[in-house]
């Protein structure tokens, strides 16, 4: 046992949890912790990355959490520092991302008195955290940190917030970190119930048109091999949600495509023919289901999720299975029979061919007119052979990145799905890059969302993060404009946006870049970007009124998917 102050105990606890990087921003109520941090950073025991806005720290931690499976860590001060985290917390909550945020709080003796920079952070963040706790006594630190990390990374991962009063940060006590934790009230079920597995297997074995819908859970549970083996053995097409992208090889004969509003034609049009659906690690978001009452009309659904509250929440599950994806798929694999469904798989190929001629070829290989978003993304994808970690912001470019980048690395697409948080891309790319320094990290944003966290260019420059930053500039808040065009009589209300010269802005931060305005410069721009050593900005002027198709209009059935 050693005598430590609360602040030292905070850092020591982080070290016990193998935390190597903190994303943060100091301020009055967290100063004692920053003072303790000084020595640890100096002796290189831990790294701190000073962001330019706490929201950036929150998203960067999400990036870290998504690629490592370990909680990303954030420091922020009380009041405005903490409230700036709310968007990132909500985002992490929706998208099942482990992060641990540590916020300073005013002295415990003045809590509740409207003290300077006091905010009810626990109250404000309760609905957007998996768990939160306010520490008012230093002695609570070791156990609460142990508990926080345990909760953030296990079960259905999620954001956790620890608020620490300033006096608790100062107080000395005998520090000892618990080696184990057992909570009475929180014991996620990870192993599937065998009875349910047998029921599921018999449905699969008797099905003519089975379909797998796989989501984020595959990445979280590292179940890529299991997914592949199950699909191969029983010959089942695999469709992926936004967060499931890159969990199944996209050039495989069984790859059915990307589900949802702007997903591929084949899985949308054919899901309604499926007689058995195996939904794994996905939650039937409305962007996936379209009009719920018409979704999967012919299918018996087997739903595998670690969160029991997801089962029967949106879609009735014939066979609900509460389990971690990996052991559940392993168990299923044992019980399913080898099968072939050639005809059914042919149907997907036929639908894919329709999309290819009607959309893919047109969008990716235009010969005249302005550069198209799909063209830019597929050129980048080809140049790097799909071997990059891609972080997209929110809007048309996001859907285009999801659709046209040919991911070749597992867990290589990161985007804000549930929350649709504009401004997510650039800071999340920071966390991804810091966690995976040996990989190429490409951030793709629109001109609108990029300006929501543009200040993080400062962090990227200071920390010399070699992020390849692509801005697809269409001069509009494109996704909103598309909806206005299609559903509001082309009344373009407040969606035109003028932007600064992004390359000049980057230069001001000491970041290199290039602006591509015509097709003939596109490949050169991509080459320059990929060959550059440090961070790089590639601004590409794209067709202003380009639309993303296919599209399932909101409230429509997925079978009413529009190709134009």
């Amino acid at each position, binding site marked *: 046992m050693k005598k430590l102050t609360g602040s030292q105990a905070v850092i020591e606890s982080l070290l016990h949890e193998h935390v190597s990087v903190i994303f943060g921003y100091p301020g009055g109520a967290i100063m004692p912790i920053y003072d303790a941090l000084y020595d640890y950073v100096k002796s290189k025991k831990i790294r701190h990355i000073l962001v330019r806005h706490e929201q950036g720290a929150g998203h960067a931690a999400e990036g870290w959490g998504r690629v490592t499976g370990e909680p990303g860590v954030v420091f922020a001060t009380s009041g405005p520092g903490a409230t700036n985290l709310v968007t990132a917390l909500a985002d992490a909550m929706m998208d099942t991302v482990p992060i641990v945020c540590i916020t300073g709080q005013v002295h415990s003796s003045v809590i509740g008195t409207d003290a300077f920079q006091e905010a009810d952070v*626990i109250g404000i963040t*309760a609905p957007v955290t998996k768990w939160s706790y306010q520490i008012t006594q230093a002695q609570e630190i070791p156990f609460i940190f142990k508990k926080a990390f345990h909760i953030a990374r296990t079960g259905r991962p999620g954001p956790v917030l620890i608020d620490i009063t300033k006096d608790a940060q100062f107080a000395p006590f005998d520090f000892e970190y618990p080696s184990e934790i057992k909570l009475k009230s929180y014991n996620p079920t990870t192993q599937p119930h065998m009875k349910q597995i047998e029921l599921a297997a018999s449905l699969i074995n008797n099905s003519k048109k089975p379909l797998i819908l796989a989501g984020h859970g595959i990445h979280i549970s590292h179940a890529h091999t299991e997914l592949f083996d199950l699909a191969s053995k029983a010959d089942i097409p695999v469709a992926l949600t936004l967060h499931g992208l890159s969990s199944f090889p996209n050039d495989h004969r069984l790859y059915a495509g990307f589900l949802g509003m702007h997903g591929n034609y084949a899985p949308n049009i054919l899901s309604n023919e499926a007689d058995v659906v195996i939904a794994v690690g996905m939650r039937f978001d409305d962007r996936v289901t379209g009009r719920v009452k018409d979704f999967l009309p012919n299918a018996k659904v087997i739903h595998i999720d670690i969160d029991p509250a997801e089962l029967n929440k949106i879609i009735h599950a014939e066979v609900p299975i509460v389990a971690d994806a990996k052991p559940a798929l392993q168990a299923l694999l044992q019980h399913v029979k080898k099968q072939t469904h050639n005809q059914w798989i042919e149907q997907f190929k036929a639908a894919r061919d329709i999309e290819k001629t009607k959309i893919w070829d047109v969008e990716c290989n235009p010969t005249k007119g302005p550069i198209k978003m799909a063209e830019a993304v597929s050129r980048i994808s080809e140049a790097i052979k799909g071997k990059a970690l891609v972080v997209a912001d929110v809007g048309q470019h996001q859907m285009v990145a999801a659709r046209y980048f040919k991911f070749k690395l597992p867990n290589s697409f990161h985007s804000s799905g549930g929350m649709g948080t504009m401004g997510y891309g650039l800071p999340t790319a920071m966390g991804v890059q810091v966690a995976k320094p040996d990989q190429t990290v490409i951030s793709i944003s629109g001109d609108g969302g990029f300006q929501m966290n543009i200040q993080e260019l400062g962090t990227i420059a200071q920390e010399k993060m070699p992020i390849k930053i692509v801005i697809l500039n269409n001069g509009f808040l494109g996704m909103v404009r598309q909806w206005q065009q299609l559903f509001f009589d082309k009344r373009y209300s407040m969606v035109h946006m003028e932007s600064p010269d992004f390359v000049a802005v980057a230069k001001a931060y000491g970041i290199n870049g290039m602006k591509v305005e015509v097709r003939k410069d596109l490949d050169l721009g991509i080459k320059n970007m990929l060959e550059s050593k440090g961070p790089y900005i590639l601004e590409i002027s794209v067709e202003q009124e380009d639309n993303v198709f296919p599209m399932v209009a909101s409230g429509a059935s997925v079978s009413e998917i529009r190709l134009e």
Partner: protein
Amino acid sequence: MKNYYTITAFTENTPGVLYRIADLFLRRKINIESLTVSEVKNEDQSRFTIVVFAQADMVEKITKQLYRIIEVVKVIDSVDTDLVAREIALLKVSANKMEQRKEIEHLVSITPFTRIIEVKKNFLILEKTGTEKDINDFYDLMKPFGIKEFVQSGRIAVFR
């Protein structure tokens, strides 16, 4: 079809749980008819007894969502036949004249689980325990005398 359900949640006895539980009902727009929180003896736990008027499938969903709250240990949702439930009510009833007082005393004496707890010059304070229905019936019985004040507790319940 909507029905009355009693959701009993056992949770760790820590601050913030009530907030999270209340928020869940708020998000689902389920009105809480009554809520009683008490300590579980000899265990550091709280017992929430929550009465709602809702659809069966909604109750099932919210029960599962309650488990998302880290501190929640166990949740049981029940219909009235699964439970023995009681509430308590206090009534301040006008009694200016002797005949009124006599009559109230008589009614109290023949109604089970009812008693007079204070006698004042112009009014009586009565205590009534029972089911919601028992309490409503007694309220109606006292109404002609003039009820100056009425308060009713939330439900407490044990499983059959």
